[in-house]
């Protein structure tokens, strides 16, 4: 039986390793950090605004997608939406979904909003821009056109902009709730002294930062840390009760 437990344990551990294969991307999340975002003109529901009109009101998270994507864009947006529903930070922010495909029209973006039932959600803005290249350079986003599949090969990128228009934090790839909470905290002038490089840690992490409470929650690693001390106290209790009175009985 013990062998099986050990095997399961080992399997879970190695599994956690394979989740982390995208970890090499981590450092590029740092690209363009603390730089001012290019103040491009964006079109929302037929009207043109400068980007600053949005971030000066409240911090924004830019998600760059294209509507004809058969790959990551849809699951990425869906996951973002689901995650945000669970994050009650009380902090202000808006999600700006921007197309990086020149073929995308205003109505394509509105249709996308409707697909996710977000057309009436004031926190979500779906927009296009004519200055795709400028914006891509500013956020460090890269999309390569693949003419065989008629698709862009690109990363899933979230760029967090604070109310001064500074890029505070970027997230590449499908991220968990904590990473997104972190992002929201950072664009709202939060400071987190440390963050982990995704994929480089096993599931035995000691702590996970929770920006909602501003505290680290104990992870599995923390429980492991407590095991020896707990085991010791249990052992002492056991020894104490097992040996109780032995001496007196014998003498």
């Amino acid at each position, binding site marked *: 039986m013990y062998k099986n437990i050990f095997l399961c344990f080992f399997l879970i551990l190695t599994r956690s390793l394979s989740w982390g294969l995208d970890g*090499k991307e981590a450092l*590029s999340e740092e690209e363009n950090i603390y730089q001012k975002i290019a103040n491009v003109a964006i079109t929302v529901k037929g009207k043109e605004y400068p980007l600053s009109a949005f971030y000066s009101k409240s911090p924004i998270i830019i998600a760059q997608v294209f509507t004809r994507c058969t790959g990551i864009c849809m699951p990425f947006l869906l996951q973002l939406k689901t995650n945000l529903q669970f994050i009650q930070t009380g902090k202000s922010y808006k999600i700006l979904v921007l197309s990086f495909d020149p073929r995308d029209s205003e109505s394509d973006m509105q249709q996308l909003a409707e697909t996710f039932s977000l057309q009436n959600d004031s926190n979500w803005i779906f927009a296009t821009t004519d200055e795709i290249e400028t914006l891509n350079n500013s956020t460090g986003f890269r999309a390569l056109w693949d003419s065989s599949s008629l698709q862009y090969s690109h990363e899933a990128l979230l760029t967090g902009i604070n109310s001064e228009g500074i890029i505070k934090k970027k997230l590449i790839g499908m991220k968990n709730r904590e990473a997104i909470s972190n992002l929201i905290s950072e664009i709202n002038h939060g400071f987190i002294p440390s963050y982990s490089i995704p994929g480089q840690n096993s599931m035995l992490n000691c702590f996970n930062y929770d920006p909602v409470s501003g505290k680290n929650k104990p992870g599995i690693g923390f429980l492991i840390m407590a095991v020896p001390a707990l085991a010791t106290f249990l052992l002492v209790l056991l020894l104490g009760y097992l040996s109780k009175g032995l001496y007196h009985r014998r003498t």
Partner: protein
Amino acid sequence: MNPQHLNILILFIVMLIIIVGVFVYVYRTSLPRNTEGSGQSGLSNPNQKRFLFFVILAAVLVILLTATLPKTPYYYFANEEPAKVVFVVARQFSFAMSYQSGKPGTPPPNEAIELPAGKTVEFRVTSNDVNHGFAIYDTQNQLIVQTQAMPGYVNRLRWKFEQPGHYSIRCLEFCGAAHAFMESSFLVK
């Protein structure tokens, strides 16, 4: 020696003198020539004095705690926007420092660093292999602030350099044979 180090040393030396003084004094009271004839023996009311001693000790510790706990280094300059951010990747046995973050799959970029005096700067410190230290020594070769470089994590250290000049970086976590030679520097203008 900078003032913080000097204060720490003075505090320690003063405590050392007090402790040695008390022990020598107590020892001398126990010598036969001092106990005979004086008619006195031992401490009167020991339990009352023990309680007093405990209360004083606890009070000193609580005062020290309340004075020092708010000064932790984790949120230095947290409310300011850094003027420059420096990405630091520590590895056996050097620091790669750059204004640019590394690209996936390539060696970390390394360039000469110049930082503005009097402005907040941020170091994002990580390690490519084992645990390293990232300690900043000022122009007088005194340790002014430090953090650890831990694989898998990025530690953010913010600081404001007031004095222009050459600052050194040293590794303070034992990282292998060439640990003592692991250093780098930057210029503050």
